[in-house]
């Protein structure tokens, strides 16, 4: 009954989205506040209806209602509760429902929180958001309905892929989608502004908070995904330049470019065409990502909910939405004002440079991801584009962007003084260079490129600090004055500093871990052990245990520091899931400050003297925690910056009130 109610609510959401589009567009067209208000009401209704549909799906999963096809295919009675709930978005149909939920949620948010927007712009934005909802909801209702019943329900479900039964992956899709789909609001605003024919500083001010929110959430989502890959796939890596990863990375890169270009548009009125183009492209890449991930046109390690036939439909939806957006852009772009002037050495120029490099990086990732398809279509040759390609092309671009980054925030708008920037940054560069040289001298084996990576990481952190010190005039005015300045610093400035420093942390972690991780593997019988990176690992016992929906073999590995002293006891598992006949390895992690000791146990095999043995593989991953901490700090910077916006909008309104 509740499932039928959910299915009805889903169709209702589609109908309300149609109403939202029609009413809002009519309201904007005829400048009718009543119609626009009705459109906003429909937006709220669509979100409420979809929330009911989604709740019904979760209800079906929690209650293991196998008469629902989606539940039967993706759940099992013995599965722990968290993964039953997460199963609701673990499949193709469920994940598209989540996509629609987030999409209508953002539409409702614009309807509720957009009071300060010009009424017509807001009405157009709600209409465009509604039209996106119609496209994706129609797809969900007619081609990928998660709430359809089975005529002949099975007694037991087929369960969720055990690789996905993990907390990080349970919360990864909601964050990822909140980020991906967050760019839909940015897209809607861009189309609305293009319809109105006005892309100005005010547009940037409205778009920036949504971009910040979407980008920060996407950052968290990607980080969770990378963390999951790190400890669940069991081979020590965290980023594989896999098509699915690239699909999420492209909107992130474009979102980062948009964050910066929107500042220029807001503060200086420059780059309106480019900014609105990025606003359209960000959601374009989100849709491309959904298509690539869900259609299975590219083979991927993360391909879990794939369906080629429906891929064509998703491609069509993407074509319609992006096509309309870019058509509007083509019509309006020539009439857009070119905006403020700036000198070659200025903060505007620095941000333009940032945007050029980020665009080149996105183009690289895009072409690398699609190239196998392109070559196949062109001359039928099957080729692969893997990590070695991206390491050779993407990394230099990144290095270039990072090398110039600290100078950006220190340059003045319009016309900057390069000598002044050098005077403020030389110390940061010197310290970074000394630390990098120290790493080169001390850490074995000696690696020049990785040491340069460290210089870059320290340079970013030092640069962020230098900028902060500059703003509060640290060491130049009395401390009381500095404290007062720290207190008065806008949140946006803190956000910049935090996010840039977070990027530095990531670069440090990535450079250090990639260059200096050590690994070994040996077949061990109980009592056997080996030495790795200053630690001694001993397999003290192997036992079996029974989980809620799996059987496991668990090794007990004592890890001691060389020369005595227990560090920790690692308990890696190898789990067998009888429902799907699958085996997964459960990695044991021993955090040691920023480092991880990473232990995996393999299959039982015959040992040397008739004793059973297990292949134990271990890694020491130095500074690996920074790889995940850095992006989270970046997301925090985004959130801090976001909290500034609201204050500023209030100030803006007050100022306007004073004028009147």
């Amino acid at each position, binding site marked *: 009954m509740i499932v039928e109610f959910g299915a009805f609510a889903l169709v209702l959401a589609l109908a309300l989205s149609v109403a939202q589009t029609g009413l809002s567009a009519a309201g904007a067209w005829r400048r009718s506040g009543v119609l626009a208000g009705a459109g906003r009401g429909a937006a709220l209704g669509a979100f409420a209806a979809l929330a009911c549909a989604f709740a019904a799906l979760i209800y079906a999963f929690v209650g293991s209602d196998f008469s629902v096809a989606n539940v039967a295919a993706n759940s099992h009675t013995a599965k722990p509760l968290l993964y039953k709930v997460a199963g609701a978005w673990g499949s193709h149909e469920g994940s598209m429902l989540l996509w629609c939920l987030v999409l209508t949620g953002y539409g409702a948010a614009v309807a509720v929180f957009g009071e300060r927007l010009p009424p017509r712009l807001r009405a157009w934005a709600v209409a465009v958001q509604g039209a996106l909802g119609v496209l994706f909801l129609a797809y969900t209702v007619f081609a990928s309905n998660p709430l359809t019943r089975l005529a002949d329900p099975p007694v037991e479900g087929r369960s969720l892929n055990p690789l996905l039964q993990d907390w990080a992956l349970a919360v990864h899709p909601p964050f990822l989608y909140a980020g991906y789909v967050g760019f839909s609001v940015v897209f809607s605003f861009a189309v609305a502004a293009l319809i109105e024919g006005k892309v100005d500083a005010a547009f940037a001010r409205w778009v920036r908070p949504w971009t910040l929110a979407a980008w920060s959430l996407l950052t968290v989502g990607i980080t969770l995904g990378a963390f999951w890959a790190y400890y669940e796939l069991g081979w020590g*890596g965290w980023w594989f330049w896999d098509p699915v990863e690239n699909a999420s990375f492209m909107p992130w890169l474009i979102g980062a470019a948009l964050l910066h270009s929107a500042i220029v548009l807001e503060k200086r009125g420059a780059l309106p065409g480019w900014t609105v183009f990025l606003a359209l492209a960000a959601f374009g890449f989100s849709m491309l990502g959904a298509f690539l991930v869900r259609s299975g046109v590219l083979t*991927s390690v993360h391909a879990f909910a794939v369906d080629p036939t429906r891929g064509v439909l998703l491609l069509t939806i993407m074509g319609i939405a992006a096509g309309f957006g870019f058509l509007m852009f083509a019509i309006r772009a020539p009439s857009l004002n070119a905006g403020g002037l*700036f000198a070659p050495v200025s903060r505007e*120029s620095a941000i*333009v440079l940032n945007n050029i*490099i980020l665009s080149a990086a996105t183009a*690289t990732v895009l072409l690398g991801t699609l190239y196998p398809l392109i070559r196949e279509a062109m001359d039928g040759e099957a*080729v692969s584009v893997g990590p070695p390609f991206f390491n*050779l092309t993407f990394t230099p671009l990144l290095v270039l962007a990072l090398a110039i980054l600290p100078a950006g925030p220190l340059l003045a708008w319009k016309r900057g003084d390069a000598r002044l920037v050098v005077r403020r940054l030389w110390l940061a560069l010197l310290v970074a260079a000394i630390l990098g040289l120290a790493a080169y001298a001390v850490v074995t084996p000696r690696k020049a490129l990785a040491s340069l990576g460290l210089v870059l990481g320290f340079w970013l952190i030092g640069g962020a600090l230098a900028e902060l010190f500059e703003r509060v005039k640290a060491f130049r005015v009395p401390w009381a004055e500095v404290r007062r300045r720290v207190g008065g610093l806008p949140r946006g400035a803190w956000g910049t500093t935090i996010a840039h420093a977070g990027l530095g942390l990531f670069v440090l972690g990535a450079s250090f871990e990639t260059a200096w991780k050590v690994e070994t593997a040996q077949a061990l019988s109980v009592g056997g052990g080996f030495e790795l990176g200053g630690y001694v690992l001993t397999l003290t016992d192997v036992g079996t245990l029974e989980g809620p929906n799996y059987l496991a073999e668990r090794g007990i590995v004592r890890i001691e520091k060389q020369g005595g002293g227990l560090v920790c006891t690692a308990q890696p598992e190898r789990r067998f899931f009888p429902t799907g006949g699958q085996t997964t390895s459960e990695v044991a992690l021993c955090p040691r400050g920023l480092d991880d000791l990473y232990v995996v146990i393999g299959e039982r095999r015959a040992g040397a003297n008739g004793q059973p043995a297990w292949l134990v593989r271990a890694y020491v991953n130095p500074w690996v925690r920074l790889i995940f901490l850095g992006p989270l700090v970046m997301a925090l910077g985004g959130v801090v910056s976001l909290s500034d916006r609201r204050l500023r909008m209030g100030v803006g309104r007050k100022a306007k009130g004073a004028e009147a």
Partner: protein
Amino acid sequence: MKTFRTLALAIAAIACMAAASDPSERLPDPAQEARARDLFKEVRCLVCQNESIDDSEAALARDLRLLVRDQVKQGRSDAQIRAFLTERYGEFVLLKPPFSAGNAVLWLTPLVVLLAGGGLMVALLRRRRVPEAGPEALSAEEEARLKGLLEGE
């Protein structure tokens, strides 16, 4: 077909777990072993979803690792080994597409986009230069209008 695909995915998911450092496969010479490991990262496990033979536990990946190790032991160069693999399995086996006329677009795009963007920026800055110091001098027409306005007061 769909069940087959799901099954294939499931098998791939089980099969593909890191295995390259399995001690039973290692070469005795550490320098050669290191070279082989570097090569593994560039060779695709053909039956896996998207992994190098360094990461995969599939039987085919092991065969390929043995093949590469064997070639390394025979003293063949990296280029020779890549050529050998390409001849046998096609370009698909290399995770890093070779620099060739066919792949020029792929390898040159990052540079082309970067240069095009840079060029565009330079052109833009040249066309719309910020006045060097103070406001520009008034044109004759503006001078006349200003005079008219002042006199009209």
